């Protein structure tokens, strides 16, 4: 009896001791999880964020939730997980979770996920969707979320431009909603009333003016560009905008023509609705693979050589079956024919992006007119010219890639001044081609040496022990 009670007593003490110790272990593990310390021993510090990203993260004063939409079995997933873990390690304010859009279609639908590998970042009551899970994209998205300064996209009025308030098929009300969804404010401005483009304009959009701008207004626009403004022009064919001269001085050529695309009839559209078949290598079109349609468009070409301080790039081109028709009569019921002498054979550029670095002179004038403005403006002015304004109208905005192309352009122009460029040092490539002798060394030392040594040691020990007996 006494023995049994002693046994039970010892059993309980031991069990309690064990439980207490396990509790301590769990506690230490929990504390350890909360205060991690990492050492990145890889050669190019692959698992460490760049200084720029660290700076952005350390300035965060609210939580960021990242939802990564990846298939469970996707090969990319591991790399992205490592990257997001690195973000999480760098800042405790970053939380992430992986969602398989195939297994949770409701969530994928709620966030309007169209492609695998999409990241949705939420925080500060806003959200940002990115399709490239690279450090540059993620850090910039976090930066966008954390900025409280609201960016304003201005639309010029006064010349019969597209109306952001009009809900009809030619209006731009859908554009307005779409831009607002990107966390920008949309306003209009009239250069006939105000002498200058507003101070707080992140982008100025001139969408399809039907009457030419006055010389004073063009001057104001040039001024805006000189101080590093971002301008989006959407100019329809056979409408003189009054901007031709200014654009020519920046190396962008507008001629009176209209693009005829015999191929686009295949898609059930008119021959005046060219398909955008190619995109130039630009941040706006990075990874863009969807076709766009530009109903009734004109060509926008670049002059060569480009003027000094200007980088020009053809952003979107039509297919090789199209051309720019310079003698177009709308009364013709027959499709026009290609004319060797006058027309320009496709692919025809219909959009051009120009990055204009101000020369010393204009820079100094910019400073003199507006001291302090340079602080939050990058000095490079970005100018994008589209030879069409219909593609973003309510009727065509949701056609194929039109809205993506337009929003990419707005995003690019609006973010230009504070976008961070992150250039990660590339992993040092070390291809290895073995020579015959190296291959032999690899085989003999790599495979055979150590087993032979072990075998020899074993035999030696047993011989020695047998002799001892």
């Amino acid at each position: 009896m006494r023995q049994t009670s002693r046994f039970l007593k010892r059993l309980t003490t031991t069990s309690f001791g064990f439980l207490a110790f396990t509790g301590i272990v769990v506690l230490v593990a929990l504390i350890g999880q909360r205060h991690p310390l990492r050492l990145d021993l890889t050669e190019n510090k692959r698992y460490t964020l760049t200084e720029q990203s660290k700076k952005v993260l350390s300035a965060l004063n609210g939580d960021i939730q990242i939802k990564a939409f990846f298939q469970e079995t996707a090969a990319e997933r591991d790399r992205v997980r490592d990257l997001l873990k690195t973000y999480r390690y760098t800042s405790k304010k970053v939380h992430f979770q992986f969602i398989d859009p195939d297994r949770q279609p409701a969530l994928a639908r709620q966030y309007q996920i169209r492609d695998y590998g999409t990241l949705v970042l939420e925080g500060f009551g806003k959200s940002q969707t990115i399709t490239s899970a690279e450090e540059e994209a993620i850090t910039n998205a976090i930066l966008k979320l954390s900025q409280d300064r609201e960016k304003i996209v201005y639309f010029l009025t006064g010349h019969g431009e597209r109306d952001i308030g009009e809900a009809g098929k030619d209006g731009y009300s859908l554009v307005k909603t779409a831009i607002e969804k990107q966390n920008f404010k949309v306003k209009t401005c009239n250069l006939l009333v105000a002498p200058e483009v507003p101070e707080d304009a992140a982008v100025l959009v001139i969408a399809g003016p039907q009457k030419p701008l006055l010389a004073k207004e063009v001057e104001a626009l040039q001024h805006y560009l000189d101080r590093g403004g971002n301008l989006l022009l959407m100019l329809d064919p056979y409408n003189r905008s009054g901007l031709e001269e200014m654009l020519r001085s920046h190396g962008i050529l507008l001629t009176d023509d209209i693009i005829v695309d015999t191929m686009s009839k295949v898609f059930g559209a008119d021959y005046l609705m060219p398909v955008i078949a190619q995109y130039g290598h630009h941040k706006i079109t990075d990874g863009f693979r969807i076709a766009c349609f530009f109903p009734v468009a004109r060509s926008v070409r670049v002059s060569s050589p480009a003027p000094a301080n200007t980088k020009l790039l053809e952003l979107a081109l039509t297919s090789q079956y199209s051309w720019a028709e310079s003698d177009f009569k709308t009364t013709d019921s027959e499709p026009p024919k290609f004319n060797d002498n006058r027309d320009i054979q496709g692919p025809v550029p219909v959009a051009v992006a120009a990055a204009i670095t101000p020369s010393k002179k204009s820079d100094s004038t910019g400073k003199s007119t507006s001291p302090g403005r340079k602080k939050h403006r990058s000095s490079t002015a970005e100018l994008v010219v589209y030879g069409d304004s219909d593609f973003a109208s309510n009727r065509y905005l949701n056609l194929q890639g039109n809205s993506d192309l337009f929003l990419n352009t707005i995003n690019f122009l609006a973010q230009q001044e504070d976008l961070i460029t992150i250039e990660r040092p590339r992993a040092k490539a070390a291809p290895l081609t073995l020579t015959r002798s190296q291959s032999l060394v690899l085989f003999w030392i790599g495979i055979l040496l150590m087993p032979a040594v072990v075998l020899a040691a074993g035999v030696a020990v047993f011989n020695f022990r047998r002799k001892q007996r």
Partner: protein
Amino acid sequence: MKGFFPVYRKELYCFFSSPVLYVVAFIFTGLAGYFFYASVSYYSLASFQAARDPFVASQLNLSDMVLQPFFGSLGIVLLLMVPLITMRLFAEEKKTGTIELLFTYPISDSAAVLGKFFAAICVVLLLLVTTLPAMAVLAYVSSPPWGNVCSGYMGLFLMSCSFVSLGLFASSLTQNQIIAAALSFGPLLLLWIIGWAQSLTGPTLGSIIGYLSLVNHFDNFTKGIVDSRDALFYLLFTTLFIFTTLRILESRQWRG
């Protein structure tokens, strides 16, 4: 800790005079050599094929294509071999009855347990050392990223510590060496693959399961990241099983 060194020395002597160690080491070195040879040869082949494509060639690096798979395979081989090393630690002494002798000596329980633990660790370290010539060969044909090599070995060592501690615990439960080996091999394998269930469960349970997974913590080391959380996991795992072994030994006094 009185008597730690005598136990440690005696255990090492037992290891080196028993054929088990040589057989285990022979198999381990053979497999390790094969994995190394295969991954380097494959890398060489991939480099040869990528020579025409500069983009693919820029993606090639030793840490991803040689070191990571090599350390990963070594981890699995160790998982198979460590139970064979640890199985006899207590089981044999129980079988032959020398365990009574061990307890009558003026040696504390913790000294006995730690002596055996560190002797087994030394043997595992020796196994790891046998793979160093492979690294020397790698340095001869190319320039390996030494940071990744260091973290890989650090991970292998820490993981081996947890393997040994579980093996030690299993050996203290029985006097049959095969049962001891099976008792350590089974749970180790389970903890190795438990991460697979992570994606099938909810977030809370999933994160606990993910934390318990031996291989999840090992992955970072093979990639070249030394994370305090991973190191702490292995250390806590080891401590917990050494502590449990001590309690098991202690219980013989009152279990009768």
